[in-house]
């Protein structure tokens, strides 16, 4: 779509000039791998690093994606959005570019996690498996950033949005299958974890690592993503008439 690449380039340059932002996005996942992946004493699996890496991958995409709404929000607050909307570029390309930029940034972080995990002892997978992992992370990234953008368009105020992301991220992560398998969870947690969209992505990546092809989770993720993107497109169109 016309304009998408230019919008992405703009966001990418802005992000890359923010040194602290770049360093933090790279250090954070590494910290998770070391402190949770290596240091945590767990007994239910031999290689906890292999178990936790999918969880950390998905969590990284989650925390990057959930903040994506603020990109569009700041463009709106600072007057950029009005300038862009007054241009003969398809308006939806603004939304699409935000979703893609955040997802691609998340995938960049994911790449660093995968490399780092292998270095500190995770099992090396074959290229096809990695390709499938990227597809899942991509779908999940678009899903989360579309969700976040929709909420941001509704809330329309940065403080509420920051409160919202803080409120959503932690519970969503701890009620997923990221940290432990379902059979060691308490019953209530296992029920929640089964319907948590994070678990879909995490379980799918674990299935890939185990050697199977998770058609159903990928299909479900695809449907979820399509629904959320449609809603967010609708809301975006409504506020930009």
């Amino acid at each position, binding site marked *: 779509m*016309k*304009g998408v690449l*230019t*919008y992405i*380039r*703009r966001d990418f*340059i*802005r992000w890359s*000039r*923010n040194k602290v932002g770049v360093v933090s996005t790279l250090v954070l996942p590494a910290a998770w791998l070391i402190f949770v992946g290596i240091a945590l004493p767990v007994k239910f699996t031999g290689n906890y690093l292999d178990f936790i890496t999918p969880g950390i991958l998905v969590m990284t995409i989650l925390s990057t994606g959930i903040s994506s709404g603020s990109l569009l*929000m*700041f463009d*709106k*607050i*600072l*007057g*950029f959005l*009005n*300038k*862009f*909307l*007054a*241009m*003969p*570029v398809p308006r939806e390309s603004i939304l699409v570019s935000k979703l893609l930029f955040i997802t691609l940034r998340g995938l960049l972080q994911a790449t660093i996690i995968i490399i780092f995990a292998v270095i500190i002892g995770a099992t090396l997978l074959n290229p096809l498996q990695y390709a499938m992992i990227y597809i899942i992370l991509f779908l999940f990234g678009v899903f989360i950033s579309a969700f976040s953008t929709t909420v941001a368009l509704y809330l*329309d*105020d*940065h*403080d509420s949005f920051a409160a919202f992301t803080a409120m959503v991220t932690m519970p969503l992560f701890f009620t997923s299958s990221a940290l432990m398998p379902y059979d060691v969870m308490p019953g209530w947690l296992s029920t929640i974890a089964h319907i948590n969209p994070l678990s879909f992505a995490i379980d799918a990546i674990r299935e890939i690592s185990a050697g199977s092809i998770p058609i159903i989770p990928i299909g479900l993720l695809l449907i979820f993503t399509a629904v959320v993107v449609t809603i967010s497109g609708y809301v975006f169109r409504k506020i*930009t*008439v």
Partner: protein
Amino acid sequence: MQFEARAKRQAYELPRRGCNMVAIQTENLTKKFGNLCAVDSLNISVDKEIFGLLGPNGSGKTTTVLMLTTLLAQTEGSASICGHDISREPDKVRDCISYVPQDMAVDSNLTGRENMLIFAQLYGIKNPKDRVDELLAVMELSDRADDLAKTYSGGMRRRLELGEALVHEPEVIFLDEPTIGLDVAARKNIWNHINALNHKGMTIFMTTHYMDEADQYCDRVGIINHGKVAALGSPAELKSRLMKDVITVIIDGKYSPVQVEGTLFVGQSGDEISFTAGNGREALPLLADALNHAGNKVRSMSLREPSLDDVFLQSVGKQEEPQGFEEFKFHMMIHRRGL
């Protein structure tokens, strides 16, 4: 004045895209926010001139600009830009226009060149780099083109924005308070650029609070109040509707109205009361007597030529904070600042 402006253009350059239609034409353009009528049946026609839309805060200036730039849908009526209807052919409208909001939206962590390049690429300009070089030179930013925009002064940022708005050679350019917050030299510079653009045949539609600038640079001004046009014409024409002289009186306390032959009450702004008079020197003592007689405590009186301020005061009346708009304004403010 409109014809003068047109002749002025023909002397310089022929139209680039053959926009033979009137640049901006509105027919009963109306916008309601709930019960509030922000713009009420606006009928204006602007072509190849510098048109200034004046009005107190909350009078509907920005709402008008937002509708004309296809950023806000009108409630009733219609408008066209270069013959393209704003609601039926918004894409074509966006092709002919540029909009520079008052927020000074420049990416401060990008260089001036990068900022402008984004616009050139978004507009799909051929050889965007050459076009950007050219415009940076026009806007006198070539020396600083590769510095981050956060190191730019307010005037430079405005010039950068103006340059961005020119990448696709629009027919009509909308400027919302183009000189707000700039120092005198920067303002003058911006106005020189706006004038030059107009000489090339571009239609400039702007809003401003600065009467002296509107007086000096606009071919025509429209004063709107409560969404309605209160006065429309060239600054000279509007001023000539007032009598030859203006007498300004500063009083203490409440003003009790007086009637003096040969003078006309213009309006009140704070403790300042304005009258217009055919012969100010003769009217001055008569007015002083009458005011004292009516029990007004006159602090000072002065005599001067009418300015656009007086026209504004007469059209808009007593200047108060517009109560009815407060909530709306507050929301706008919050949206802008993101508080």
